[in-house]
């Protein structure tokens, strides 16, 4: 690829990404009343999308080979339990992450 072809490719990727980010705001501007269906989606999507992000961030874990996702399961459970019982998000995330690092670097190494 020439330099200008590279620039055009990068610009195309930036444009595609920006379409996905801006489109909802362009279609449903704040100045107009949001249709009831879209308002409903605005309520149910956030919790659903958070579940989807959990799956998305774990998508490359192989359940049927290697360690069968055991380190992810253990560290993930620790995170969820700490969040549920202490309601301290930084503590939950930090403990889960350090726990995971210890598991993959020492226990399942």
């Amino acid at each position, binding site marked *: 690829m020439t330099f200008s072809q590279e620039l055009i490719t990068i610009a195309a990727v930036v444009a595609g990404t920006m379409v996905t980010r*801006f489109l909802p705001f362009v279609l449903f501007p704040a100045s107009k009343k949001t249709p009831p269906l879209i308002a409903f989606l605005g309520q149910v999507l956030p919790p659903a999308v958070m579940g989807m992000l959990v799956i998305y961030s774990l998508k490359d874990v192989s359940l049927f080979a290697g360690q069968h996702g055991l380190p992810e399961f253990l560290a993930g459970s620790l995170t*969820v339990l700490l969040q549920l019982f202490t309601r301290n998000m*930084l503590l939950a995330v930090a403990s889960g992450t350090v726990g995971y690092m210890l598991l993959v670097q020492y226990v399942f190494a």
Partner: protein
Amino acid sequence: MNKYGSALRAAFPITLPICAAFLFLGISYGLYMTGRGFAPLYPICTSALVFAGSMEFVLVSLLLGPFDPLNAFFMALTVNSRHLFYGLSMLEKYKDTGLKKLYLIFGMCDESFAINCSVKIPAGIDKGWFMTFVTFLNQCYWVTGVTTGALVGSRLDFDAKGLDFALTALFLAIFAAQWQGEENHGPSLLGLALPFFCLLLWGPKAFLPPSLALLLALFVCAFYYRRQRS
């Protein structure tokens, strides 16, 4: 303290897990792209402009392949289609944020969305500036990580294997916090179960578009079903 300072102070702690993960992942991306023969300026600029982690890795292979900008455009649409859902979720929250709204939308990566969508902003803190600082700090971490990786990555000797789990842990913690605060667990359960089954069926590369389509279809049905009953 003025409203900017207090918003920054409120936003900073919650972005710390992202700081750790983005510095680490950013270094890997900087290393990856320069390792493929690109000058350091490439990963540095693309990290600031695209700012959507997985798409940036795809971009490297697009740049190494034949010239096909249309394909690149549609690839970005597909890989980032989940952002459409973020936008729909944030229509209300980003209201009344003035010009900052443009930046909030531009910089809405998974992690900034997850925090801005779920965190209870403390009373007395300017909502718009809080969300802007969350977005801006996250972008700074990412660009800093990528720059470090691109410039001195090969000279770094660190074993941070597993540090990227901070992002999974963050999503899990937000999910758990949301679970505690909601009366109806239906949307949360669907959001977990549907993508999981799609992942088993279609695999990690292709499961996202069908997951999004199915979720959307189910919620639209639920809306009309409810309206008919009432």
